[in-house]
């Protein structure tokens, strides 16, 4: 199966990239956009099975995300 992992800066953590994008959008005529946050998207394939969710969760905690500054969520889809 396939895991789609989304990693974002934790709420309250300054995201300089997001802020810069947010400040650029009005220049293109997009007004009123707020809370732009830039994260990462990681795709990976792993063997099917009940343990897959727990495995991806552990991967996120140990390597894919840094829980001190990042939140993560993921979905498992048939690969």
């Amino acid at each position: 199966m396939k895991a789609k992992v989304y990693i974002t800066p934790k709420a309250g953590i300054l995201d300089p990239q997001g802020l810069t994008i947010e400040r650029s959008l009005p220049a293109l005529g997009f007004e009123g956009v707020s809370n732009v946050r830039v994260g990462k998207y990681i795709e990976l394939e792993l063997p099917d099975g009940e343990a897959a969710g727990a495995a991806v969760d552990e991967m996120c905690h140990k390597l894919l995300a840094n829980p001190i500054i990042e939140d993560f969520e993921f979905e498992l889809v048939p690969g």
Partner: protein
Amino acid sequence: MAVSPQTEVTPVRFGVVVFPGSNCDADSYDAVRSFAGVDARYLWHKDTELEGLDCIILPGGFSYGDYLRCGAIARFSPIMKGVRRFADDGGLVIGICNGFQILLEAGMLPGAMHQNEGLKFVCKQVNLRVENNETPFTADYERGQVIGVPIAHHEGNYFIDETGLAELEANGQVVVRYCDEEGETTPASNPNGSLGNIAGVCNREGNVFGLMPHPERVCDEIVGGTDGRAVFESIISAVAGKAAAS
């Protein structure tokens, strides 16, 4: 036991870890070799035996291409198990720049790094104020002393949560802060947005130290300064003092 005048002084033994992508390993090696009574050797990231060392340096650079997050992959390299064991046994470990990032990712120091507030790679001379001179890495400085040391990084924006910050402050674990020439920790003297102008922290035990600025690059007048020398002098004194006491 009384030491006779003929007894040879045991050299202080430094190990400089070389990860794929390290690029300040030679600077660190040269800096420590410029002191008398020092032995230094390189340690390859695949080494697992770290016998006969007094201090391990994790140098600056772009270990493993800084993929995923700075230091995130280096943390899992074979040598890091040994480095952790070495630190647990009381050995001195100093991480400079990328080395600091690796120590954070490994959980050997508290906190995390993210991108500089200004989004740019910053390469310049900065002023640091020595907040704690009771560590084996800073004992040769005065408390409150202002030193000039260069920085060169893109991810040096130090972050720790409120509880963690309170603990750091209470335990004197903030070792150096970015400041202006007068030693004031102003927003303008903060080059990367680090919380509390924090430039370097140590662990609670005081034997693991990480900092973003590069003391090894200011160890010789010919390259523009010598304010970094006291870091290595402090380490050498600490190791020699410990040996004399045992």
